């Protein structure tokens, strides 16, 4: 053909072109291969076009050319040539673009073979692309010019789509997969037309709404081919601007509901919603358009319809749709909580209509649905106002329910939220009830149990209100829920509740005012009653050590409020626990320290009560009956402080303090003898040095019952003990202690003044 071109021999050119184009008549090639062939032909046709355009080379006016090529033998080469000439014709402006194009698009009907026709029309699209009679182009026609352009492209598109769909039905069903692959390779040829439509100058919203979109959608729906429908819907969403989508939302959504059931409408709808969300976020001033168009309502309805009509859709599909819709609502209308609630409500309806939810993927989607408001609003209180939120949670299985509850708690912790009314606390604890108690009677004991309960405990610290009345209500609501938790949960959850109440007591106490009125809702006395009852429940677990500590905390708090009976009651409970429940030696030692330490600080007790409680701790009481002698000794001398409180009007009974020290000394001696008897060597002198330090303590405080000679003899005793070792070794480990004690006394001595005088009489 090239030689003919060079020779400017028209007849030959046409003959050889037709020959070349006949190659395209084959049915044997796969689409990919056909495409290669097509491209090569395309290049050649470009050469041809250049030749044809130059009338001087071949001498024929283009009108005649147009006639001439129609004599080509077979229709396919004929059509290709016609299109090529037509392109030249339009360019020459000897006929209006719209007429030529109309002619061409009609005549292409002659080729009905799917692949061949597809490529032919594709060729037509390509050559006509820059010759459409659009606004501002060289080929602009009369007033209807844009309509003409649109009409041409639409027609071409319609025909191309029909051909494309037909590929599906060519062979037997067994080659469906292969056909799908082929169709996939060809789909861009179809989509290109839509791209062209999207780029035509002069197509504005009205025309799009009235003509373009309805025609496209008509084809999409009527072709009843799921492959085509899916691809074309995607194309439409991507090609046309978002503002158009917003204004034609109803039409688009109507089409969506009419699609074949096998089309994955979810993805189409999700894409649409994503685009609209991005649009809303990027230009906030279009928000009012969204509201005007009632975008959310329309989407909600459409989704509802899709879910209802596609009854085959698995539940995970429906949930995914809801998640997309919720994301849309949160991004576009973040302030419209009612929208969010609506989506949740629709979800509840769907979940209620089916069997119990078991699909893990669907569960995951529901969790995503519930997490989205938490992340968006960063404030649990907002989520608590969504009436459908708990209803959705009810449909989760136990494990997922707990997971969701943990997510809620984590959100509160992360945002440092404070929940401040009893009502909201009630709603919150209903939401997390999977953690608070055993649902459905199943005792779930996973490895996360401790972590979960600790999370609940931490949560309790986030509930606060400055108003004592409201705070007490909150405490009561929490208590009510925690009591349903069972014995395994109480040790974790009760302590933070106790301390919440103690903080409230302190707040009331510091506020002052009349605390004794019985009709006041929140008084320390009432709270202590609640505390007593609450700690009592721990005995069912049982955890006596924890309960003892809590009783002592309450006792000290009651003392600060001058409530002697309450304080006494708490101490009684603590003592009972000690005597009856705490048997472990180490635990006993700690318990004694806590009891003695607390008792030492409490100043509310009158003489009677004090005289009942103190001996129990000291002397003939707990201290002296500890198992190991060193423990006994230490406990007893610690109790000496019960008789000496350094306050202004604190008790300062030096005599009884000394009695304790003497008793401790006796025990230390006994311990020493035991060590001698059993191990053949003296034990350490540590105990003696400790007691010496205590002697010094009270001596310096001014107790008249401790004399310098007491201290002197104790020093002698220690020296003696240190030297009397059967093996003649001096023990080194207590030396530093004794040494530093002596050093301290010397330091005090050389201070002079009153302190110095005290030490004057002691030889160091």
């Amino acid at each position: 053909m090239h030689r003919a071109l060079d020779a400017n021999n028209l007849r030959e050119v046409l003959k050889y072109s037709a020959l070349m184009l006949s190659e395209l008549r084959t049915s044997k090639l796969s689409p990919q291969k056909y495409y290669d062939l097509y491209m090569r032909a395309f290049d050649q046709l470009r050469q041809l076009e250049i030749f044809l355009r130059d009338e001087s080379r071949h001498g024929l006016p283009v009108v005649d050319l147009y006639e001439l090529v129609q004599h080509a033998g077979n229709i396919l080469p004929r059509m290709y040539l016609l299109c090529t000439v037509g392109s030249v014709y339009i360019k020459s402006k000897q006929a209006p673009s719209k007429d030529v194009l109309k002619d061409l698009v009609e005549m292409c009907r002659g080729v009905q073979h799917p692949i061949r026709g597809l490529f032919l029309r594709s060729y037509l699209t390509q050559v006509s692309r820059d010759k459409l009679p659009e606004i501002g182009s060289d080929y602009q026609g009369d007033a209807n010019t844009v309509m003409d352009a649109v009409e041409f492209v639409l027609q071409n598109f319609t025909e191309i789509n029909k051909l494309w769909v037909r590929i599906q039905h060519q062979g037997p069903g067994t080659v469906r997969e292969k056909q799908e692959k082929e169709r996939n390779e060809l789909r861009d040829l179809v989509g290109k037309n839509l791209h062209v439509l999207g780029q035509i100058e002069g197509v504005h919203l009205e025309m799009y709404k009235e003509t373009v979109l309805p025609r496209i959608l008509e084809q999409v729906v009527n072709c009843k081919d799921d492959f085509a429908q899916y691809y074309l819907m995607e194309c439409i969403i991507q090609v046309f601007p978002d503002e158009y989508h917003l204004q034609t939302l109803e039409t688009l959504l109507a089409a969506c509901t009419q699609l074949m059931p096998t089309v994955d409408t979810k993805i189409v709808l999700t894409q649409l919603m994503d685009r609209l969300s991005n649009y809303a976020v990027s230009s906030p001033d279009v928000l009012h358009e969204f509201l005007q168009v009632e975008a959310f309502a329309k989407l909600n309805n459409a989704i509802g319809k899709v879910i209802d009509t596609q009854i085959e859709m698995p539940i995970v599909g429906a949930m995914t749709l809801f998640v997309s819709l919720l994301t849309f609502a949160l991004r576009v209308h973040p302030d419209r909580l009612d929208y969010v609630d609506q989506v949740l409500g629709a979800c509840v309806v769907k979940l209620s209509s089916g069997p119990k939810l078991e699909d893990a993927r669907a569960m995951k989607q529901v969790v995503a649905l519930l997490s989205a408001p938490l992340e968006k609003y960063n404030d649990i209180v907002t989520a608590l106002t969504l009436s459908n939120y708990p209803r959705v949670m009810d449909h989760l299985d136990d494990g997922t329910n707990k997971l969701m509850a943990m997510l809620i708690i984590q959100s509160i912790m992360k945002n440092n939220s404070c929940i401040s009314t009893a009502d909201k606390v009630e709603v919150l604890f209903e939401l997390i009830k999977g953690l608070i108690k055993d649902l459905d009677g199943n005792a779930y004991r996973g490895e996360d149990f401790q972590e979960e309960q600790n999370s609940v405990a931490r949560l309790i610290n986030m509930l606060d209100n400055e108003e004592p009345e409201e705070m007490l209500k909150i405490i009561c609501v929490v208590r009510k829920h925690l009591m349903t938790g069972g014995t395994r949960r109480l040790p974790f959850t009760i302590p933070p509740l106790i301390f919440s109440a103690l903080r409230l007591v302190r707040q009331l106490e510091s506020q002052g005012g009349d605390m004794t009125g019985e009709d006041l809702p929140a008084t320390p006395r009432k709270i202590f009653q609640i505390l007593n009852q609450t700690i009592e429940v721990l005995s069912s677990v049982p955890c006596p050590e924890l309960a003892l500590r809590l009783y002592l905390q309450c006792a000290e708090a009651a003392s600060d409020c001058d409530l002697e009976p309450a304080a006494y009651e708490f101490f009684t409970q603590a003592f009972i626990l000690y005597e009856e429940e705490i048997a472990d030696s180490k635990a006993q030692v700690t318990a004694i320290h806590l009891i003695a330490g607390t008792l030492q600080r409490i100043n509310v007790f009158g003489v009677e009560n004090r005289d009942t409680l103190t001996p129990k701790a000291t002397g003939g009481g707990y201290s002296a009956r500890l198992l190991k002698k060193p423990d006994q000794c230490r406990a007893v001398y610690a109790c000496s402080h019960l008789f000496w409180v350094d306050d202004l009007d604190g008790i300062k009974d030096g005599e009884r303090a000394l009695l304790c020290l003497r008793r401790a000394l006796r025990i230390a001696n006994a311990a020493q003898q035991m060590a001698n008897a059993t191990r053949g060597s003296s034990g350490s002198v540590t105990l003696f040095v400790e007691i010496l330090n205590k002697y010094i303590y009270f001596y310096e405080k001014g107790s008249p019952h401790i004399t310098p000679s007491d201290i002197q003899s104790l020093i002698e005793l220690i020296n003696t003990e240190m030297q009397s070792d059967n093996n003649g070794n001096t023990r080194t480990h207590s030396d530093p202690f004794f040494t530093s004690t002596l050093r301290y006394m010397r330091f005090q001595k050389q201070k002079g003044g009153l302190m110095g005088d005290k030490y004057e009489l002691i030889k160091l």
Partner: protein
Amino acid sequence: MVLVLALGDLHVPHRAADLPPKFKSMLVPGKIQHIICTGNLCIKEIHDYLKTICPDLHIVRGEFDEDARYPETKTLTIGQFKLGLCHGHQVIPWGDLDSLAMLQRQLDVDILVTGHTHQFTAYKHEGGVVINPGSATGAYSSINQDVNPSFVLMDIDGLRVVVYVYELIDGEVKVDKIDFKKASTSTSAP
């Protein structure tokens, strides 16, 4: 220059949900060489969290600690200083300086770190220094009516230790510092 973080009495989750965010953002991993903790964390999560700030964690038992295996007292040497650690509920009267001084003599340490009162203190006495880092979360205390969250950072450099105390008061972190010098390396005398 050795940085030692001293803190304790967090009481998570009994009395507090977590450390204050402002403290958490200051406690960055890798900056501190040692952590000494007076106890009452109370749960393992806090133990693990402290370990991420510094792997060399020393801790003693508070009366509410979940892990009963922590020791009652602990001593360690950092640079030229001997440090002693004890929660303090074992020393009666609680918070009494003389009784704590006795414990210090007994443990034979230059610096005694103790807690339980939820009140920051730093005393120098004949036998050395007693430091109480207070409660890192500002937890409720029956002993102390007005608790602000606080912790202590000690900068040990040769014979000198600078004690920085960080307190969260009305939402702002306030820092104070106290200098202590030790006379010589051989004894713990002032």
